[in-house]
């Protein structure tokens, strides 16, 4: 009995060791960890792109979808192999601080100011995003802010600043939630909010809100893909990350971004230029 038991044990040990040997190196070479924003994940863009890249390259991409702030933080801590985010100022700092290398603008979409369909604050007559924001602050109606350091939240704070408004007026509501949740809350309270167009289109059928202001340079929303500095974290999957970044700016990747549609609307415009 004992003999069999000890045999079993060593056999089990062998099996475990063997499987580890085969699995581990394979895993670290195969998996690419990508930290990105909820907008690329919620809209379904990545579900469209990744299978194509994976079958072409043999890598497996694992997506961690959070706000831009957290995604960059994960990059800073060396927890992911690359990041795909949309907050130019935060990204510039990320590169300047030596965490990120080879930033590439891959695509853009735009932000929209959403609000009640009857537009009580009369935003539709505004010329600029700043003017529209100032009207919201004056109206006393609720304005829902993401309040979570996401790319959208950072953009919103920039617009307040440009409009010369301190965001602490009566209706200012900082909710600390993702985009989708914030849209549902804005819908419940019938207030205004700033959203990326992608998430809005994806949620359109659930909402009694309309686009009360859009367009203009201020509300452009460019996305970048940035690799992590190998000098800081030598043991990440830099080869895989580079391959994915290269594929995103390839003809095929860029064409796929352009042809991605939700509810019949094109959400992202490919922008990479040599």
């Amino acid at each position, binding site marked *: 009995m004992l003999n069999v038991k000890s045999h079993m044990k060593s056999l089990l040990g062998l099996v475990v060791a063997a499987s580890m040997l085969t699995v581990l190196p394979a895993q670290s070479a195969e998996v690419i960890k990508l930290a990105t924003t909820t907008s690329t994940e919620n809209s379904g863009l990545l579900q469209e792109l990744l299978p194509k890249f994976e079958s072409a390259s043999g890598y497996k991409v694992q997506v961690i979808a*959070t*706000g831009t*702030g*957290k995604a960059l*933080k*994960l990059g*800073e*801590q060396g927890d992911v192999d690359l990041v795909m985010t949309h907050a130019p100022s935060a990204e510039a700092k990320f590169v300047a601080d030596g965490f990120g290398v080879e930033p590439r603008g891959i695509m853009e979409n735009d932000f929209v100011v959403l609000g009640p369909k009857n537009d009580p604050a009369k935003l539709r007559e505004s010329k600029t995003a700043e003017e529209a924001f100032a009207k919201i602050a004056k109206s006393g109606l609720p304005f829902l802010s993401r*309040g*979570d*350091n996401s790319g959208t939240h950072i953009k919103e704070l920039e617009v307040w600043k440009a409009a010369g408004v301190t965001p602490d007026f009566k209706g200012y*509501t*900082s*909710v*600390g*939630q993702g985009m989708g949740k914030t849209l549902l*809350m804005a*819908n*419940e*309270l019938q207030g205004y909010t700033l959203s990326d167009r992608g998430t809005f289109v994806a949620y359109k059928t659930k909402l009694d809100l309309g686009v009360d202001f859009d367009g203009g340079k201020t509300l452009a929303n460019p996305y970048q893909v940035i690799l992590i500095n190998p000098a800081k974290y030598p043991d990440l999957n830099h080869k895989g990350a580079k391959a994915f970044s290269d594929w995103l700016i390839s003809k095929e990747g860029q064409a796929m971004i352009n042809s991605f549609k939700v509810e019949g609307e094109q959400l992202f415009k490919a922008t990479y230029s040599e």
Partner: protein
Amino acid sequence: MSEGWLALLQQALSLLFSLDPDVWSIISVSFSVSFAALLITLVPSMVLGFVLAFAHFPGKWFVTNLVQTLQSIPTVVIGLLVYLILTRNGPLGDLKWLFTQEGMILGQMLICAPVMIAMSQAAFTSVDRRAWETSRTLGASWAGAVWAVCRELRMPLLLAIVAAFSRILTEVGCSMMVGGNILNVTRNIPTAIALETSKGDFAQAIALGLVLLILALILNFALGSLRGKETPRSH
């Protein structure tokens, strides 16, 4: 981690001791909402627990099991229920309670009542019926006799209250859904910890976690010392 543990802990402690207004607003929301929910449900729950323990009526078995079941419903399910009731097109949509403290209190009442009912019922069931009969025969009024029983049971009843309170003070699902995590209005300790962690700002999350930890320690030590003072009863 690019920041050391110690540095984070230091930041967290300085947030607490420098009376950072955001942190204290979060703590005060947590306590005011949970205390309100506890105080509103306290007496009705205890009465119901008492009735379930002492009275006999048809369907008692069903009610007892229902309360037991409600105790183990996940808080997100209660959150979902309250959300659906309070939403704009819901039955109580006109109250405009969604994303307010009133809504959070309602949700927390539903979470803590079953805990208090079930635990007080267990306590009242365990008491020697003679304590009740003795005080009645000694001429105590009905209320006086109830009071005597409650005095006899102060320990398990206190435990019921503490258990219910700790459940609502630490639940995140219902508060997040019904309260909406609005800064200075409905952002409480658990939802703030969830948010700060998702932002990657751990200092505030740790500070708030410490508050919960310290509170748990105080409550347990207080209960422990009370228990220590109790003289063993000889029946």
